[in-house]
């Protein structure tokens, strides 16, 4: 996609979802779907981010709130277990952090250049103010 010229696009500021007809797409994992080349799934919006969510699985209770609320389907979940964040499609809106119910939160926003290992090592402890 990134290497395409102006004359190679589908006309009409239009994105085709899939190559060919689509059946039972809900039952197919994102990475296994026959996305067309001109699709927002193949286009990264990672450079929109100023802050990124960091996921700490030590505190995650797999409630799936982040998966439900993410407006860009950027939370990767397998068999109702939170796996991580799809950093190609996360715009850094922070909604996943907002809805995370654990204490401390299992997702926190850090500036884009923060080292993930360091962030995880210095994860905040339980906030006694809550509950």
């Amino acid at each position: 996609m990134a290497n395409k010229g102006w004359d190679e696009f589908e006309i009409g500021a239009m994105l085709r979802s899939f190559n060919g007809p689509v059946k039972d797409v809900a039952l197919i994992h994102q990475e296994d779907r026959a996305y067309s080349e001109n699709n927002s799934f193949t286009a990264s919006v990672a450079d929109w981010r100023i802050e990124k969510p960091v996921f700490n699985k030590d505190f995650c209770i797999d409630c799936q709130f982040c998966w439900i609320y993410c407006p860009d389907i950027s939370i990767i979940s397998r068999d109702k277990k939170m796996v991580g964040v799809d950093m190609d499609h996360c715009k850094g809106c922070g909604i996943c952090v907002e809805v995370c119910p654990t204490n401390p939160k299992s997702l926190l926003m850090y500036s884009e250049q923060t080292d993930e290992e360091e962030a995880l090592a210095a994860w905040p402890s339980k906030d006694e103010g809550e509950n």
Partner: protein
Amino acid sequence: MAFDKMELRDIEVWDGNFAAAQALRQCQIDVVAAYPITPSTPIVEGYAKFLADGYVEGEFVMVESEHAAMSGCIGASAAGGRVATATSSQGLALMSETLYQASGMRLPIILNLVNRALASPLNVNGDHSDMYMVRDSGWIQFDAYNPQEAYDLNFIAFKVAEDHDIRLPAIVNQDGFMTSHTAQGVKTLSDDVAYGFVGEFKPMNDMLDLDHPVTHGVQTEEDWHFEHKARQHRDLMTKVIPKIEAVFDEFEKLSGRKYNIVEKYDMDDADVAVVCLGTSVETAREVAKEMRENGIKAGVVGIRVLRPFPFMQIAEALKDVKAIAALDRSSPNGAAGMLFNEIAGALYNTGSKALLSGYVYGLGGRDLTKTHLRDLYKELQANADAGKVTTQLQQFIGVRGPKLAFL
């Protein structure tokens, strides 16, 4: 077909609005979303009546503003229907945001624009301010000089716009009141012949094709936006004029009426020429004929297709002329008139030595009389004889008070 056919006489007495409404009926529009505004109201009114009487199988969407009217048209067109609407003046101004959506999404919507002045002061009469306002919106723009042409150009516009290589929306302009409310004899096409010409609508990437889902009007930031605009511009600059020419030829075979990208009148040996749009072209032709009897080799160039601007055809038509007047029926508001600028652009590198002057006329429905045009041709002849522009470069003709000129 589930709708009734209408028996038309070979020649019907129609005004421009009714002619356009009949054309929309004969094209069997699927959806018209409209908000009425003078002087274009009778077009959608006419269509609504045809629909109510069972002559069309379609949908008339009543909306709360012109912005919603064009938005509805865009939705219906993206969904996969043949769509048209009509508007004027402030209505077009309110639509202007959505016009760019339609052309960027490459939706072949037809807009009948009945040209009217833009406020303030409020005015319902004809001038070309609205036509000029949206000239960079990416729509193809045709210009009709009389009701017959308002009828014919609708068919031509559909056929050009809906071609899968083009897929761009098109405006059919006609002069407010002067064309839209003046009844004249209009040679008609029978329902079958007309529908046969435009053909059945063939949607492309329509949203209602649920097996092949697409997203329309997506967001593209700096990474793709330029490429989409480049493609749209390329298609406008290279594909549209040849396609229009082909459709004009096809229409001539069907009806015997010949249209040209640029309508030349007595231009073969003309020394002086007037370039204009709309009903003024016909007045100018009358006066040019008269001037020829008085020894002035006068010609008229009528612009038929305003967008894409026919640079080559204009340059070709004006190549041997000594003095040219560009007549703009729109207030230039701080510049030279649009036609003046674009004709200058078309001629600058051609080696043409023609003297070009710009005239602003007819704002808010003010008449352009034969006397004005006679004086204008005489001025052009004086310029041609002197080999230089002897009057000011930009003049307002027909305005009350002392002569107005700034360039």
